[in-house]
């Protein structure tokens, strides 16, 4: 039986998320995990360039971003810097593969609020997001 977890803002409103990943599978998986916690996914970006454009278009109607680090062309660290430069209060959560936590240190120094690890475990992902959002 799937454990029900709901993540809501302190005022009871739904969080809005932008999901960024070059893998169609992971994009779908993260979207499903977030939606299972009643989080609204307002955008799916399959590459870094689209992610930067979508964040600017969605702003201020996006509460946080899940951002894959390893993407071809414009990678996650570049996207992070662009988003933080546009919105210094952005909440960006990096997504990276098991064992690559060291790369996350650079992301944290550039403003990322935390990270989640692949392979994705629904409960672990939601607990981590809940802690990062302070929900």
């Amino acid at each position, binding site marked *: 039986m799937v454990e029900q977890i709901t993540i809501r803002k302190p005022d009871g409103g739904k969080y809005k998320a932008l999901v960024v990943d070059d893998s169609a599978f992971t994009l779908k998986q993260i979207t499903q995990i977030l939606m299972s916690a009643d989080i609204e996914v307002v955008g799916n970006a399959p590459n870094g360039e689209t992610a930067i454009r979508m964040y600017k278009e969605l702003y201020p109607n996006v509460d946080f971003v899940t951002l894959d680090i390893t993407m071809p062309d414009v990678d996650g660290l570049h996207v992070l810097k662009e988003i933080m430069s546009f919105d210094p209060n952005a909440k960006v959560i990096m997504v990276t*593969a*098991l*064992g690559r936590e*060291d*790369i996350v240190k650079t992301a944290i120094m550039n403003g990322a609020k935390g990270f989640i690890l*692949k392979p994705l475990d*629904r409960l672990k992902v939601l607990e981590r997001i809940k802690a990062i959002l302070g929900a």
Partner: protein
Amino acid sequence: MRIEYINPFVEATFEVLSEILKEGNLRRGELFLKRSPTPNYGVSIIIGLTGPASGRVLLDMPPNTAKKLISAISGDEVKDLNDIGKSALGEIANMIVGNAITKLYKKGFTFALTPPTVITGNDYTIDTPQIETLVVPVIFGEDKLEINIALKEA
């Protein structure tokens, strides 16, 4: 090919597959070398590497093993190898090779990787001219996949 390059890929494969399959019952088969193109098992994921050595890592497995891995990582039973399933296989290869190059980085070797390419079907061979390929079989239950590591010093 330097022996220091091999173990990180084997360790990373075991760590990532154990996490995905939620089982610790994986074992390594006998290593062997390939010198020429050989028939494959039907599903291959290739990731290119550049750095102190260049070449590629290829994960080769039968369709049933691929479906088992996709089912395990997605949480849904998979019957066909559709585009989302192939994307999942690419992600698994990314996790393994990404994990391995982090281990290599900690040993002082900095590698970069290319996005994964997933190939399915039986009517093809993979040729890596002038690069010897080390094959590491990984066995779990009735399933087997092979890690093909072909790296040549730059």
